[in-house]
Structure formats: structure tokens, C-alpha cells
């Protein structure tokens, strides 16, 4: 029933922390890579054979070929960041499985 109460500011005022920056960049790079992969899959494997025969389409791609170089660089950046952060996640999140001593595990009642 708090429809009239204002909400305190959150995103605009909160200082970007190292932890939250890592997390959101991981998500953004993941989404970016997913769209890139999807577009390349569509383009190269599915509709490329047909749509590249169209004059205008081919022309557009030819003239934006420099852009492709830049986007490849950005994709490489996103891929490497996502990969390293993914490995870090696996190590930190699953460290409890590897370093927990057997005796302590037994005392947790099931």
C-alpha cells in the first residue's frame, strides 16, 4: 500500500563498486557475445547465401567493412573479459567444494 511513498534513490547515487562493476560487465559482455554469435550464425550460415546476392545489401556490407574490424576488436575484448570473469566465478563460487574439510562437513546435520 506504499503507492504514495517515494522510493529512495538507488542506481543514480550508489557509488560503483568493484564487485558490482565486475558483475554487470559480465552480464553485458555475455549478452553482447550472444547477439554477435546469433547474428553471425544467421548471416553466415543461414541467409548469407541468398542475401549477399542482392546488390544493395552487398554494397552496404562492403562499405561498412571497416566497422567490422572495430566490432571484431570489441567482441574480442568482451569475449576475453567474459572468459576471465567466468573462470574467476567458477574458482570463487566453487572453492567451498574443494577446500572444505571432511570432518566439518559431517557435523552439518542432514
Amino acid at each position, binding site marked *: 500500500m*506504499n503507492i504514495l*511513498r*517515494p*522510493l*529512495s*534513490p*538507488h*542506481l543514480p*547515487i*550508489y*557509488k560503483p*563498486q*568493484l*564487485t*558490482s562493476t565486475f*558483475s*554487470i560487465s559480465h552480464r553485458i559482455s555475455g549478452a553482447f557475445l550472444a547477439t554477435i554469435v546469433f547474428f553471425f550464425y544467421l548471416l553466415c550460415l543461414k541467409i548469407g547465401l541468398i542475401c549477399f546476392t542482392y546488390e544493395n545489401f552487398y554494397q552496404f556490407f562492403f562499405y561498412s567493412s571497416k566497422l567490422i574490424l572495430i566490432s571484431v576488436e570489441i567482441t574480442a575484448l568482451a569475449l576475453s573479459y567474459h572468459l576471465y570473469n567466468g573462470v574467476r*566465478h567458477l574458482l*570463487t*563460487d566453487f572453492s*567451498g*567444494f574443494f577446500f*572444505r574439510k571432511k570432518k*566439518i562437513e559431517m*557435523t*552439518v*546435520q*542432514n
Partner: protein
Amino acid sequence: MVLDALIKIKNEIDPSLTFRRSCREGICGSCAMNIDGCNGLACLTKISSDSESTITPLPHMFVIKDLVVDMTNFYNQYKSIEPWLKRKTPAPTPGKEIPQSKSDRAKLDGMYECILCACCSTSCPSYWWNPESYLGPAALLHANRWIMDSRDEYTQERLDAINDEFKLYRCHTILNCSRACPKGLNPGKHIQNIKRLELSS
């Protein structure tokens, strides 16, 4: 500390400034607020040497007045994890305390010190977007405190109660909570412990 500055402003400049405060020594958790973009206790945060300091209430909470926010939802979530000892069998010696070894008691270190100031939960973006359904780091820290207590016999029921897509698994290990805790606790680590136990239960 920032609390002294707030009290001075209330005394000399604007008596209508409203904020919660009690112990002035970082143990009650009343004066939790957002100072210069980071959550913390006003009585433990030093006034920065920059000329200006921005103080806002705890993020993404309904504001009652000035720096006072509505903590009902936060307290209800704490209540929902049933933070009391539950046993199926009576105590070994009736009328006396339930004995606990030193190593079992040591397992509670890092969890029992939580003062429920809400700095961690209100720093979690996942809690911002799902305040009603996600329990938040503070409630989950306390859930772990009772799960890890060797005297408590309802461990499996406690684990099942939070084994839910929203209550526990809205945590994406953003780990803003551990950065924000003014008592130096690590809610992220304890939530990870719950997730680990859920896997093996």
C-alpha cells in the same frame, strides 16, 4: 563521525532533519544510511575531508521522512526464516543448556555479529529489483546462522524453505553486500555456503 555532523545540523541549523540513531557506537544499526554513495553506519563513517558529502537514505526503500526508511519488509523477511532454535528431541539434560563444542560454536562466528542494519540488503542490486520476493543478504546470512547451528535440528526443513527460485537464487554473487557491511561480515560467503548445502541435500 557523520552522525555527529547530522546531530549538529539538527541542533543548530534545521531541527526538522529526521534520522534514526541510538547507540552512537556502531552496535545498534539504527543510523544506517548511504553516505557518499556507499552504505554504512553514520556513527562509524568518518566525515570526508572533501568539502561536500552527499547523504541519502538506504537505497530503493520507501522513504517515511528525510533519512528514515520503511524497514517493515526487511524485518518481515528476517522473521520468515524463523530465527530461533528449533529442536525435535528434548535437550540432553532437561533444564540445562544444550552443550555445544568450541569448534561448533566457532562456526557461528561471522554470522552472529549481524546487527540487522540493512546496509548489505539495500546495497544489493538484485534486492533492489526484487525486494518482496528475494530475501536479501541479511536474512540469508541469518538463515545460514541457524542452518550451521549444531544445536538446531531443523536443518533440512530450513534448507527446503529457502530452496526457491526467488528467495535464495536471486543472488547472482554480485557481492556488493560484503563491501557494504559496516561490521566487516561477509554475507556473500555465507549465501554461497547455503547454495553449497542445497546442492548436497
